[in-house]
């Protein structure tokens, strides 16, 4: 049995107030990541000791994790489409897929961070270490929140508490997940592919 949807409040423009509030939140997140990326770029190439990005960044491994995150975005929109048409069987599959995709990304990040620390790159090692771990760590924390959010939706779907009437709830979770994805698109280019 599907539970009733929460009451929907529309703005004077006829927009869902939850969605509007969430877009405003995403706007504020742009400023947060903008400041972290700026800090990374300002200090790029100014470390007085190693390891440097060229010595330590593993592009092939990060390319795979980038592909994984891109695919999880596809699974997210497929989950939303399934919820909207009331196909809860596939909605559960795709929601779990997103959570697993996010967990795999975090696994890659854990592998990357631990190998960097073994090679001498810590937050205290140099400016690159400090700015790199803060930026990618903040992104990783966002992915972690997203994975927990997806698992929550998946459990609600398993319990029969998620149905087509909750499509907006899934769409808002999707907005968060895609935002995490687009931020990674920027980080992958600026930090990994355009390193000095």
């Amino acid at each position, binding site marked *: 049995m599907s539970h009733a949807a929460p009451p929907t409040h*529309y703005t004077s*423009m006829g927009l869902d107030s939850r969605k509007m509030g969430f877009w405003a939140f*995403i706007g504020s997140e*742009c400023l947060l990541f*903008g400041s972290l990326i700026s800090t990374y770029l*300002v200090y790029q190439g100014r470390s007085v000791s190693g390891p440097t990005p060229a010595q330590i960044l593993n592009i092939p491994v990060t390319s795979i994790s980038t592909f994984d995150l891109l695919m999880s975005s596809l699974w997210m929109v497929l989950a939303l489409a399934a919820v909207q048409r009331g196909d809860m069987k596939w909605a559960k599959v795709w929601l779990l897929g997103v959570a697993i995709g996010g967990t795999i990304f975090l696994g890659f990040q854990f592998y990357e961070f631990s190998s960097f620390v073994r090679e001498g790159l810590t937050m205290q090692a140099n400016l690159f270490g400090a700015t790199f771990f803060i930026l990618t760590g903040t992104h990783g924390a966002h992915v972690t929140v997203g994975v927990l959010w997806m698992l929550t939706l998946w459990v609600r779907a398993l319990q029969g508490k998620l149905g087509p009437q909750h499509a907006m709830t899934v769409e808002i979770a999707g907005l968060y997940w895609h935002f995490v994805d687009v931020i990674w698109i920027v980080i992958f280019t600026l930090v990994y592919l355009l390193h000095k």
Partner: protein
Amino acid sequence: MQPTHAADAPHPVEHPHPTAGVYIRVAVILTILTVIEVGVFYVPTFHPVLAPVLLSLSAIKFAIVVMFYMHLKMDSKFFTLLFGGPLLLAAVVMLGLLFLFGVLTLGR
């Protein structure tokens, strides 16, 4: 007597979302662009133009995800304003800091 606010209540504005086929085509395009990005990184011929090429590809991927997966292409323009405004502000602040700290310079 009917509540007077009922007639004044705003009508929800619904926008149709893309189909699963569109979502899959978008994913294929994103994958191809990512492969090109990584390929360009490893081809020495592209190194003189690496930054503009990679930044352009990244911007295209960013725009595709925001337009199709986050539905800004179909949704209310007000959502575009809510997202685009702070995004533009973040970009301007970023450029300002990069010029201020000498990472970017005009001319030479």
